[in-house]
């Protein structure tokens, strides 16, 4: 196979076209051809089509999109909402923003089709606030789409109305969690909500709501045009379709590579020109920092939902952060933990206090002031956070620590060694704990 064979440019196929973000380019390259087809079908048919395609959520959890859509009530007693999660906060993840920069209309077309399928007449795109350039581009595209009659009243004469609003977040990782996102969108403090009720029953403004990731929704027009079977020609039975893998770190050509689900890191590294300067791979995340680390042993793990899970991690957002042998694992783990401490929303005890404590232990270890007991404490505190927190942020926060110690305990121990050496050369403090 050549390198190009491994790539399956679907979502990314227009990215290199000149002015790819304009309506003109989009229309020239098959844009808005799925919409009229979709509007001729019934909402039920569209939901079935997406179910048949096996499209799974691209926001991290991989929940089947068609099944999620089918939770929306079949009638319209209440307003329905579609909310696009464009918060893209997971460390290493860089796919939704490039997509919205390069091809915003594919997302907009997906929004109209999905809204129609779920009987929503209001759609919100919640974009992380740190990317004003992306928000500007999206707004410009939305304006174009309104102008051209793809949004607004009576879209393409179908009688279907849709208002689309681009909303800027205010810079909190937790607002990517779908219920915190809804609170934030309502103008409240972004903290996850108690479920049930699930968004499909009471979401935005307590009305039936579906939250989907950008990549999930942008996939829909292609499925409408080419069919479920075509979609299933890529990837595996349970994880079909193409996926945008974002490679960052010590690789020659970092960036987005769209390949079928199940592609391995070895193959992706080939596409990206290999490890930077030929320095060997040490560890990597398969799907952002919330997914347990992999090592060079895992180069051939098929990167789909099942493959990543079987190998002890998660597919997450297919954000591959790649580190070579020059990087200290405890240091990297400390940096990630500092991120989670900063981003913990504060609602629940395990995540709020756990990340506060874990950060201090790791910082101390990295300063060379740790002990072996600290490693036990780290693992035990992680155990008290994992699965005890209110939302998955807490689970994600401990992934780097537990997997880091699992694969690289020696490095943590080595830090303690140096501390012991230092301690031996110092005089003992007069009282236990009186030393600073």
């Amino acid at each position, binding site marked *: 196979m050549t390198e190009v064979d491994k790539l399956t440019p679907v979502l990314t196929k227009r990215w290199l076209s000149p002015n790819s973000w304009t309506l003109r380019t989009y229309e020239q390259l098959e844009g808005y051809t799925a919409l009229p087809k979709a509007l001729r079908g019934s909402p039920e048919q569209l939901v079935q089509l997406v179910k048949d395609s096996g499209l799974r959520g691209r926001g991290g959890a991989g929940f089947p999109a068609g099944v999620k859509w089918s939770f929306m009530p079949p009638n319209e007693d209440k307003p329905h909402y579609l909310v696009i999660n464009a918060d893209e906060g997971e460390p290493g993840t860089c796919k939704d923003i490039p997509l919205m920069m390069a091809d915003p209309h594919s997302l907009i077309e997906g929004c109209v089709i999905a809204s129609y399928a779920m009987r929503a007449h209001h759609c919100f795109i919640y974009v992380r606030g740190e990317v004003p350039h992306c928000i500007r581009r999206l707004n410009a595209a939305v304006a174009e789409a309104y102008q051209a009659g793809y949004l607004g009243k009576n879209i393409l004469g179908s009688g279907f109305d849709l208002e689309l609003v681009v909303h800027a977040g205010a810079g909190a990782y937790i607002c990517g969690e779908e219920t915190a996102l809804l609170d934030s969108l309502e103008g409240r403090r972004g903290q996850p909500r108690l479920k049930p009720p699930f968004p499909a029953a009471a979401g935005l403004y307590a009305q039936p709501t579906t939250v989907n990731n950008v990549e999930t929704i942008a996939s829909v027009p292609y499925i409408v045009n080419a069919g479920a079977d075509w979609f299933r020609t890529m990837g595996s039975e349970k994880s079909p379709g193409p996926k945008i893998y974002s490679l960052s770190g010590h690789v020659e050509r970092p960036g987005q590579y769209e390949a079928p689900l199940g592609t391995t890191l070895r193959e992706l590294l080939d596409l990206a020109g290999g490890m930077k300067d030929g320095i060997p791979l040490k560890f990597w995340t398969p799907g952002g920092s919330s997914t347990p680390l992999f090592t060079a042993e895992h180069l051939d793990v098929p990167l789909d939902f099942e493959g990543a899970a079987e190998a002890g991690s998660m597919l997450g957002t297919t954000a591959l952060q790649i580190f070579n042998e020059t990087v200290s694992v405890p240091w990297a783990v400390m940096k990630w933990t500092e991120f989670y401490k900063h981003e913990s929303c*504060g609602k629940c005890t395990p995540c709020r206090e756990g990340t506060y404590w874990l950060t201090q232990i790791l910082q101390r270890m990295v300063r060379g002031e740790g002990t072996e007991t600290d490693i036990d404490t780290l693992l035990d505190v992680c155990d008290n956070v994992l699965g005890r927190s209110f939302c998955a942020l807490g689970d994600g926060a401990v992934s780097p620590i537990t997997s880091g110690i699992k694969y690289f305990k020696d490095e943590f121990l080595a830090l303690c060694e140096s501390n012991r050496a230092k301690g031996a050369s110092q005089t003992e403090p007069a009282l236990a*704990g009186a030393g600073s």
Partner: protein
Amino acid sequence: MTLAADRNHEGELEVPEGYVKLTIDGLEVVAPQGELIIRTAERLGIQVPRFCDHPLLDPAGACRQCLVEVEMGGRPMPKPQASCTVPVADGMVVKTQHTSPVADKAQQGVMELLLINHPLDCPICDKGGECPLQNQAMSNGRAESRFVDTKRTFPKPLPISSQVLLDRERCVLCQRCTRFSNEIAGDPFIELLERGAGQQIGTSATAAIADEAESAANTIEGKPFQSYFSGNTIQICPVGALTSAAYRFRSRPFDLVSTPSICEGCSSGCAERVDTRRGKIMRKLASNDPEVNEEWICDKGRFSFPYVAAADRVLRPQVRNAETGKLEDASWTEALRVAAEGLTAARERGVGVLASGRSTLEDAYAYSKFARIALRTNDIDFRARAHSAEELDFLTAKVLGTNPETGVSFASIEQAPAVLCVALEPEDESPIVFLRLRKAARKSGTKVFHLASWTSPAVTKTFGTLLPAVPGEEPKELDHLDSAVRDQLSAPGAVLLVGERAAEVPGLYSAVARLAESTGAKLAWIPRRAGERGALEAGALPTLLPGGRAVADAAARTELETAWGLEAGALPTEQGKDTADILRAAADGELGGLLVGGVDPDDLPDPALARTALRSAGFVVSLEVRHSAVTELADVVLPVAAAPEKDGSFVNWEGRHRPFEIALHRSDGATLPDCRVLDTLAIEMDADLFTQTPKAATEDLLRIGYAGTAVAAAPNAQPSEQPTRSKPNQAVLATWRELLDGGSLQADEPALAGTARTRCVRMSANTATEAGLRKGELAVLSAAVDGGGEVRLPVEIADLPDGVVWAPGGGEFGKIRRDLGVGHGSLVVLRGGGSQA
């Protein structure tokens, strides 16, 4: 719903409709559908540790202290579940810390995490000794923390208001306070701020106060924090993060003597706990009474007890020296003798009895009986406020003798499809009724209507609908209710609530009675004061005798004469004078004397007349807790106990009997309840009341029994002519007393006073423009008739009808009644008074 569910022949638990069967720690239990695991476990005697959970707040699942293992359909759920958020289900298997090592470790883990940032200042913390964190750390935590790093610190404390102080270091972020304020009170004055370990409770002014350590009297929207219920947040805080400015550092829980009691603050009769230490009340807490106040009390009830220890307490009997004209301390024997002689002499020309609306049932009964047999008169009235003959008929026909079973109760408000409030501003005039209305609207979808002149905060917070009315025109509005509203009030279970202010609008009680008749809605009368309902039952009125007997009913009189052991015909037969007539007669010199029990002349319909009456009455005996305008003019002053210093009972607005014991034993004299003082005084006058103690009074009341023979036709009074606004600067006054307005029970409690609402006069934009006033400017209100004083208040614009102004009844700026001599529905003159105060 329960443990003792029935077992069938095979010995299996029966599962009634709407219930499920599950297993907790190996014990089978039947529980109502929807019950949360934590509560089912509790009923089984299994205590799962918790912080954020509170049975009256919506579940949050935030602290994660209550984790348990749950198995459904034979499959264990992958993670431990927060038992405070998961409802029980059929076939569920729950393992708590007692049977699951996973749950136990999870709980210990959360506890350790909660403690890493918790300061070890328990020895100086108010909560120490009664602290859920302290207790549960002992029961479900590890003895030693592994945390050796740096704790998060904050400057402390921050004043959230003048009465609530916040220590952010101690806070475990359970959000009970913010949820209470949001859900229960509807006053979201505090919110979570920041995130992660920096997350904290605060107000919009937190940053400012943290810097400058000045008071944060602002809510998140920048409105002043003036919740009437903020004290509850102190009580439900599971740590010492929220403390009471008044109680802080004053006592340790184990030094307190706690007595269950009933609040004397209003007619709801909330269950409360009075904590005393060395002869002083240190604090009051809400007790849990699901039927009445649930677990809440208002701030007035919680904080307004310092009056008991006020410097101006009457502690010794006093007799006026005829030569110097000064009151002088006297012995009880001397004072009682002078009082008895004076009253006996005055009795010839008649003595009027002004009883108080704050008396216990037993004291009111003693006044009632004293008037009849010692003073031989029916000139007695407990209504130390605006009142009317129409009201007497209304009370006799519609209120007398009702109780929670036969009339309206808190529960029936909660279940009502619709409630209409008439002449009642629930948040100010009956705060617990307000909370129940809000709960009804939030939880049961009750439609709440308010017949009032503007959209007060209570209208908004009960999700209510304003039925706008010009003061005085309420009867007309009720007679011509919108048919949609009338329909809702005709639904079974609908409720009409009418406040005592109805007495100020001629024809209003009649219209309310008519509306109740025509819709079938249940009717309740909600007076402001704690003793009014009891005094009605005790017959402290010119037309009623104790036990629901009419003065005019000869048979009832005979029955009472027998029960009281009097000669036939001993009871006065003539209908008595009401408060206004007693005062008028006294002022005109027609009465020989007055017996006054705890009345403030400024509350009376005509304060000036009341003062004249006190001066003109030949002989005045005053039974008082504190020196007052009455004691100033009295010939004999007899000290009596304040409510916490005596036993007795209140009858709340539901007609529910609320007995209580002595909470504060004092040793300095002012310890006798009115009934005891009256009993002794009566003996000096050769009459026997049998009310030596409240218990004896109760027995006497029981002995005469409740006859309930007093009947009256529902009143049918005509509305009076609307006063015409003859000049453009005249307006119709709407007014009521706000909850916190420096009333007599609120003395000496500056922290409480600090959360009163900002006083202002409200009017429509048109009315303001017409008077040449703008928002924030000072307006001057004076009586339309000459001679009155004036009050000055800043202008607020609100949705009042044009030509109507609203002003608070009391407060620092003055009192409408005292200074203008007018009330609700009167004409006042409105003019500019210069710019901002």
